[in-house]
């Protein structure tokens, strides 16, 4: 626990110095990496700890994003209120999906498909809902001159760098605290063996709902900030299958069920993503990044099933 807390402090402290040496391009790149590390950490709470496979987490990114954006643009509500509301709404959604799924004994792969069906249903409905712009998208107005980022929660790369770093740090602290609490033990027990967990007094349904609500709520808040950073929202990019899959890659590569896995994974995947994108552009080969992503995940599943996080941790500790 203490070692973990020191690691979080060192991680975030070091990265907080980033703007001193990095240019705007790298800052926005890292902000994106932090965003995906955060989404990964939220997804990891469900999958890595409770063993609940969600392949529709784009639902929460989308609902969170649209909530914040619509509240801001259509109703003039500040993101300071919008973000918590987005979190609450998505926590409720997560809880509802977990409850319906597990209440009616929808398990494993079935649960995964339920999450996917919910996300796809939401995407299609949003694409046909004029109020949120449909497929044409929903746009935030340009920033007024003299914008104060801390007031509007919108700004340049540096602002979102810090905003997502802060969010990520909070997620790391939360994950660490859960890992070393009754809830963490209970979630891991459910993941490992549901029958044994129940026989040990673990209220499985309640814990699952709690994990899904927490995960959904976090993702919703992240989705809100993500929308503020992007400035535009499209149902397909905010809650399509692609983003649901994309946010799983970092925690899988970094290490499922570990505190730092999603962050390490995202920081590892982002350069790979960026390099392959460059390569794809230079060579004029569209889709190279998808191929490289796939091969990367394949290699991790084949040779480092626990993810690269544990190996990195061993290196840092100076042990082999």
């Amino acid at each position, binding site marked *: 626990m203490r070692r973990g807390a020191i690691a979080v402090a060192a991680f975030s402290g070091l990265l907080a110095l980033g703007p001193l040496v990095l240019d705007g391009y790298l800052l926005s790149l890292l902000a994106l990496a932090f965003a995906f590390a955060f989404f990964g950490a939220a997804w990891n709470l469900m999958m890595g700890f409770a063993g609940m496979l969600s392949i529709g987490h784009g639902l929460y990114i989308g609902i969170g994003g649209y909530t914040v954006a619509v509240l801001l643009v259509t109703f003039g509500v500040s993101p300071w209120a919008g973000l918590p509301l987005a979190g609450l709404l998505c926590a409720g959604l997560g809880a509802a999906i977990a409850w319906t799924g597990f209440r009616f004994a929808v398990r494993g792969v079935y649960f995964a498909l339920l999450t996917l069906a919910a996300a796809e249903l939401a995407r299609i409905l949003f694409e046909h809902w004029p109020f949120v712009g449909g497929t044409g998208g929903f746009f935030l107005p340009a920033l007024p001159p003299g914008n104060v980022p801390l007031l509007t929660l919108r700004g340049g790369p540096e602002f979102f760098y810090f905003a997502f770093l802060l969010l990520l740090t909070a997620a790391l602290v939360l994950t660490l605290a859960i890992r*070393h609490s009754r809830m963490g*033990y209970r979630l891991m027990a459910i993941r*490992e*063996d549901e029958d044994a*967990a*129940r*026989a040990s007094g*673990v209220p499985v349904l309640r814990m699952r709902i709690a994990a899904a609500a927490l995960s959904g709520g976090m993702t919703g808040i992240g989705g809100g900030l993500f929308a503020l950073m992007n400035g535009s929202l499209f149902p397909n990019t905010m809650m399509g299958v692609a983003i649901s899959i994309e946010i799983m890659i970092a925690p899988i590569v970094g290490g499922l069920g570990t505190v730092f896995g999603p962050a390490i994974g995202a920081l590892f995947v982002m350069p790979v993503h960026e390099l392959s994108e460059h390569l794809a552009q230079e060579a004029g080969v569209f889709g190279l990044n998808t191929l490289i992503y796939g091969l990367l995940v394949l290699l991790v599943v084949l040779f480092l099933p626990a993810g690269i996080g544990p190996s990195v941790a061993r290196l840092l500790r100076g042990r082999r």
Partner: protein
Amino acid sequence: MSLLAVEALSRNFAGLRAVSEVSFCVEEGSITALIGPNGAGKTTCFNLIAGALKPSSGRVIFAGEDVTGLPPEALCLRGIGRTFQIVRPMPELTVLENAMVGAFARESRLAAAEAVAREALSRVGLLPKAGMPAAQLTLPDRKMLEVARALATRPRLLLLDEVMAGLRAGEAGAIVESLRAVNAAGVTILMIEHVMRVVMALARHIVVLHHGEKIADGTPEEVTRDPAVIRSYLGERGAA
């Protein structure tokens, strides 16, 4: 009054009667064994008592309360702990952390849970291995870890499903001693057991099931003299 009373318990699977009108009692502080040939319905009976399965009919009375059909987590909180026939400790966690999952049934704070878990581990002799990943344990140690996790829930009644299966004689001896100590500390034990030497060494009360029905109930001496019991066991040997 009995700690556990099973009254006319039955369970059907797709028309098949796995457990049929079984009744017996487990006295507070006793060690009771549930024995019978393979497929006699012992584990089903256990699952009915521990809430993993719902009975088709009949009642389970625990400490004077009708607990029929309650889910396992509720029964655990009322004081029924259990182990599983197939041991599946959580491989990613350490021995101590495995036991702590049980301890969290009654403790909400980390330090308190750790203390309870350590105490449970020491009762089965696993404390020296507390820091080991559970995946590295030998089979007898894994079985004892199952017992420790159940003990850490602080049960009044401990249900043990074949803890001796697959163990060598020397290993079984150590476990018999541990179980005696656990029982002496006030935990009532109901065990399914195939190894008759162990049953005779521990149990003062034996319930025999055959084809889902109770065919004998009594002290070891009474049960081993019972013609129905002898027939059922010889019958099984004859078929095999």
